[in-house]
Structure formats: structure tokens, C-alpha cells
């Protein structure tokens, strides 16, 4: 519809002003609404709806290499899910995922806020250095995983060397190869990886808080702690909500780092849902199981996203 109108306006009317007029009239009118809605819907259906639906369908079917190509595969209902719930690995991977995501969200947000507040202090080169902190976030996760694996190596790793030199440890710590610490080790690396992104978002949020509020609070006799609690935190709330939602979604997808550092081991001690899903699909060729895990993760992410949207709406209606 648009294209016809737009091209119709073109030939024979050389004056740009005239053409603009027609377009403006068109884009200003409500006539364009269906087009905008249709374009968005088409995009969503093709690039979001289709893969999501495909995954959900796969999780309800029996899928093998042989029938991967066709969509008409044997339906098995919720068998794949009950099979996963019954798997002895399930409780372990669930616990790992909750710990990994929980620790990451808390530490990335708290750490991000601390660093953002630090760089808000005015000192020479503050904004330049803040930019440099982002460097970690720009690197590919595979590179970060390889570097951290080296940092955390038991025998010639940097961290153990530093700790031993400072006299904190007598024996090397087996960060990655001890099931008791492997999840902590990959969490540490992932916090380091995600923190700069949180820091930048929070720095933007902090910049949006009017200076006058701080000045007024200071005149009223509020100290730095009081100012932080009564001015910074409440005004930063929308940003923090967004951040918690975003970092939950990001960490729910974490895969590359763990894959490079531990492969989910030892004995699945650092195995989380995305890693398990990948292992099922591409190592054991259990595509249905992999799809079922993806669907479960999708459900969790969906709940988080809805909670976030509702909080935004509540915030706006205030």
C-alpha cells in the first residue's frame, strides 16, 4: 500500500517539496498504523515466533538426526520433560543454574553500581578510564574463557601464584578442577565479563539524576549515605529493574565461557542449563531433550521479562 502511494508520487513531480508533502501527510495520518503493525508482526513471526515455536514443537516430539529435516515427527507429549525431571542430573544442574544466575545478577549489579559511583567522582581521566573498563565486555567470550582458564590454572596459574606469593595459600587451589570451586570459578569469570555493561547502564542512569536534588539534600543536611539512600537509589530504581531483568536474561544464556573453561565438569559441577542443552543436542544427539531444556529456560526468561515490563508500567503510572 505504502509503496504504491510513494512511487505514484514520484514520477512526474520533480519538486522534492511536493513529494515530502505527500509523504508527510501519509506518515502523519493514522493510515500508516496498519503498516507499522504488520511490519512488526511479520518481523516477530519470522525471527522470533518461528524459532520459538519450532523449539517448543521439537520438545514435544521425538527428534533424531533422521527426521530432523521434516516437521512430521512422532509426538510424545510431555515425555521429554518428565524424562528430564527424572534425570539424576536435573537437580544438580538446576541448583548450579540458580546459583550461577543468582550470584551473577547480584554481583554484576552491585559491582556495576559501585564502579559507576566510583567513576562519577570527578577526577582527571575519569570518563576515559570508564571507557577502558568496557574493553573486557567487548572481547569475545571464547577469548575471555581461555584467558581465565589460564589465570585460574592450578599449577602455573596467575591467581595461585599471586595468592602463594602473598602467603595466603600453602597449596595450589584447584579452582577449575575441584567440583567444590568450579562453579564459583566460572561465576567469577562471568561476573568480570558482565560487570562493565551494567556499569555503563548505571552510569547513564546516574547521569540522569539532576544535580540540584543532591544540592538540595545537602542543604537539608543529608550526608553522603543519606543522599545515596534517599536520592540516588529511588531515582535509579527503573534502571536497576531493567538491569536485573537484562542480566538475568544474559546469564541464563551463558555458554561460551563455561564451555571453554570446564566443559561443564568436573562431574557436571559447573554444568548449567544452556550447557546441558547443548551437550544433549550436539554431543548425544538428543535434540528433543535439548529443546525441552531450551523451552524451560524460555519460560523462565519470559516470566522475568513480564515482571520487568509490569514494573516499568507501574513506574510510569506513578
Amino acid at each position, binding site marked *: 500500500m505504502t509503496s504504491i502511494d510513494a512511487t505514484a508520487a514520484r514520477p512526474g513531480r520533480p519538486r522534492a517539496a511536493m513529494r515530502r508533502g505527500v509523504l508527510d501527510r501519509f506518515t502523519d495520518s493514522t493510515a500508516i498504523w496498519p503498516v507499522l503493525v504488520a511490519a512488526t508482526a511479520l518481523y516477530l513471526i519470522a525471527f522470533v515466533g518461528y524459532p520459538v515455536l519450532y523449539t517448543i514443537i521439537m520438545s514435544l516430539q521425538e527428534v533424531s538426526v*533422521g527426521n530432523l529435516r521434516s516437521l512430521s515427527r512422532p509426538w510424545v507429549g510431555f515425555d521429554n520433560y518428565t524424562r528430564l525431571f527424572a534425570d539424576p542430573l536435573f537437580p544438580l544442574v538446576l541448583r548450579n543454574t540458580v546459583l550461577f544466575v543468582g550470584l551473577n545478577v547480584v554481583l554484576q549489579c552491585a559491582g556495576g553500581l559501585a564502579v559507576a559511583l566510583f567513576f562519577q567522582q570527578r577526577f582527571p581521566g575519569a570518563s576515559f578510564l570508564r571507557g577502558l573498563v568496557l574493553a573486557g565486555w567487548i572481547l569475545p567470550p571464547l577469548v575471555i574463557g581461555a584467558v581465565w582458564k589460564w589465570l585460574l*590454572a592450578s599449577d602455573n596459574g596467575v591467581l595461585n601464584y599471586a595468592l602463594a606469593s602473598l602467603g595466603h595459600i600453602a597449596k595450589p587451589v584447584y579452582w577449575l578442577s*575441584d*567440583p567444590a570451586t568450579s562453579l564459583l570459578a566460572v561465576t567469577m569469570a562471568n561476573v568480570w565479563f558482565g560487570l562493565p555493561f551494567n556499569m555503563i547502564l548505571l552510569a547513564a542512569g546516574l547521569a540522569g539524576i539532576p544535580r540540584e536534588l543532591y544540592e538540595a539534600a545537602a542543604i537539608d543536611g543529608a550526608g553522603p549515605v543519606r543522599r545515596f539512600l534517599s536520592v540516588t537509589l529511588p531515582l535509579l530504581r527503573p534502571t536497576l529493574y531493567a538491569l536485573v531483568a537484562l542480566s538475568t536474561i544474559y546469564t541464563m544464556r551463558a555458554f561460551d565461557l563455561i564451555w571453554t573453561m570446564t566443559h561443564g*565438569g568436573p*562431574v*557436571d559441577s559447573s554444568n548449567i542449563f544452556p550447557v546441558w542443552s547443548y551437550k544433549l*543436542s*550436539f554431543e548425544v*544427539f538428543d535434540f528433543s531433550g535439548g529443546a525441552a531444556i531450551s523451552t524451560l529456560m524460555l519460560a523462565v526468561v519470559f516470566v522475568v521479562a513480564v515482571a520487568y515490563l509490569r514494573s516499568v508500567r507501574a513506574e510510569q503510572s506513578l
Partner: protein
Amino acid sequence: MQGSSRRQALAGLMGAVAVAALSAGSAAAGEKITMWHIFGNATEPALANLAKWDKLNPDNPLDHKFIPFGQLSQQLIKGIATGDVPDLITIDNPVVASFASQGALEDLTEMVKASKVIKKDGYFPGSWNTTIWNGKQFAVPGEANTLALYYNADMFRAKGLDPDRPPRTWAELKAASEKLTDPAKNVYGIGFSAIQSEEGTFQWLPFLQQSGGNLRDLTSADSVAALALWADWVKSGQASKDVLVKRQFEMTSAFLGGGSAMVVSGPWELQRMDKDAKFEWRVAVLPVREGKNIEASALGGYVWGVPKGAKNPKLAFKVIEFMSEPEQMKQAWSGGRLPPVASIAIDNPSNPKAYEVFKRQMEFAKARGPHPAWPQISAAVQTAIQSALTGQATPAAALEKAQAVVKPLLDKNPIDGL
């Protein structure tokens, strides 16, 4: 009515013949043969073989793409899911049965039977077996590799061991590993990869076979001894705990850096040894267990396969035949691999001593499978290895758990000799 349907059928048939003729014609003239392979290294001699094909067959040049070894299966699966598969692919030998049993590979039985180049007799039986599923042939061995024991001769001498007499039995290996371990210098006696992936299984299976145990009977005293051997090395500090998360490549790096005095690894590391080792290194065949005297090692290597849905299976097979000619197969050694055909000898091989060792070791190399559920079997074995090495379970308890998974799978489809 009848007449018209017959006429239609005839017309259809003629059409089909015409289309077939057309496609055959176009295949002969200028059609490219698509190939996914694992030849990533720029110095990889197999790349020279590909270039040679292009030179000799300008009408059907290869359109080839490198895929890292670890991503082969994943890429093939993606290709199958989207209907975009190449004409020819290199596959890791233990997953052939998985793909074949699920109908993802072309049946090459007839073409191999008719082939003048590819003759079953010459091939190492282990290599050949990996390509057969249910009596049909789904692939052709491309290269073979196996595991042996690399050791640091300088460290041997420093600890009063004779580098000319490498460990021949488990007892000698244990004694050597204990002597060579030097915590003050950060040196471990022995290195191997027990990572939770196929590599861990690949490295442990030789010890399982040497022990006299097998996958069918993982709870037997012999099988348990094979896992206890590894677990004790870690427990006593003769092997690093990092074997649990390090790949073979990383364990070999540790050996090269002087972090371990011995390492279980393959011929693919020879180039790196030549380049990076700052000490005298040697290779020996893996030891045997006293009282059993079973020589064993793992069998690795890729095979050539034609994915179902390939546009030019016939042309692809011609490429397989070309690559299977002795002239091309001989290139394998300079890439750190062996020809899968026993009778093909490398003239003047680099590292002649290592060549002799690996060639001898190949005679005892056993295939992983073929089994359609090999990945599941392997996963259960990996978990057992890791549970025992972390001390979460005793070797016996860990293997008992694995047995519960592995036995039903083997009852359904037994594996010869495992």
C-alpha cells in the same frame, strides 16, 4: 482411462530420464563438489591433496570449507536440519554409526564394492569397522591415529631412569611416574586428559583394554583396576588435578612446558614437539598390564562420508577414491597422522623413530564402536572417570553407575572386542 494414465506414466518416465540425463550432464561439466573438512592448519598436507584434485579435475573443482574438529557433528546436524549439506564431509569415526543408523549418510556399499582403489583388505580392521553399520558401508577411512606415551628423556636421566628403556608394564609406568614426580620443581610424573568430553573416553579406553576389562563388564575387578590406576595418579599427586578440565592439546602443552615428564598423546603433536620442545623427547608404545600382556591403544581419525541429500554423491565418491590412492594417503604422516591402510609405508618419514612406534601402536588400536549410541556410552564413561578422579566416588562405585547406562545399550547393539 487406463490408456491415458499409462501415457502419463510414460511421459513422466521420459521426463525423469531427461532430467536425470541433464543433471548428469551438468555434473560432468563445471559443477563444483562441496566439501567440509577439518584441515585447518595452513601447513596441512591434505590441503595439497585438495589442490591436486582441482588441478587434475578442472571441470569439477572442490568448493571446500574448513570446520574445526570439535564442531564437525554440530555443523553437519545444522546442515541436515536446514537441508544444506555438502557432497562430502570428514567425520570423526565414533559418530559414523550414530549418523548412519539415523539415515543421515549415503550408503556407499555398492560404490566401494565396485571400486578399484578402495579394497577392504589393506585397511586396519579397526579403521574399516568404524565405517560399517548393520552390514552396510557408510564411510571410507581417511586417516588413522592412535595414542602412545611421550616422555622427557632429560628428566628420565636426571631421575636415574634409562631413557632407552621406557616403561613396558603398568608397574614400571607407575614406578617411573612416582620417581619423575617432583613437586618442588612443579613437575608431575604423568599427564593424560580426563576431561568430561569424548577426549577423556578416548584416553581412558586403552587402559581399560590393557587391564583385561571391557565396556560390557565395567564392574569387573580388571575394569576397576584401570580406573583406579588413573585415580591413584591424581590422588597421589603424580598427575595434576587439572587433567579433569584440560584437553589433550593442553596436557601436551604442559608436557612441552616441562610441567609433566610423560604424557599420553598422539602423532598429531609431532610437529609441535619438533618446534617447541626444549628437551630431548621420545615416544614409546603404551605399556601392558603384567599378567595380562594385552597391547591396546585408542583408534582415532576421520572418515570420508557423503551426507544424505548431497547433490553429487557419485562425484563425491570419486574424490574419496582419489584421496584413498597411496600417493595422497602418504601425505598423512607429515600432517601428524597415519594412512589407514597398513601396507602403505611412508618413505623417509620425518621423526622415523616416532613413526615406527605409532605404526606399531596402530596394530593394537581398537575402534570406539561402531555403536549408534556411542555418544551416550561415552558420556557415562566420562562421568565415571570424573567421579573417581575427583574422589566423589570410588572407582568401583563410579563404574557401577556407568555400567547401569552402558550395559543395556550394549545388550541392544554389541560392540566387537569392547
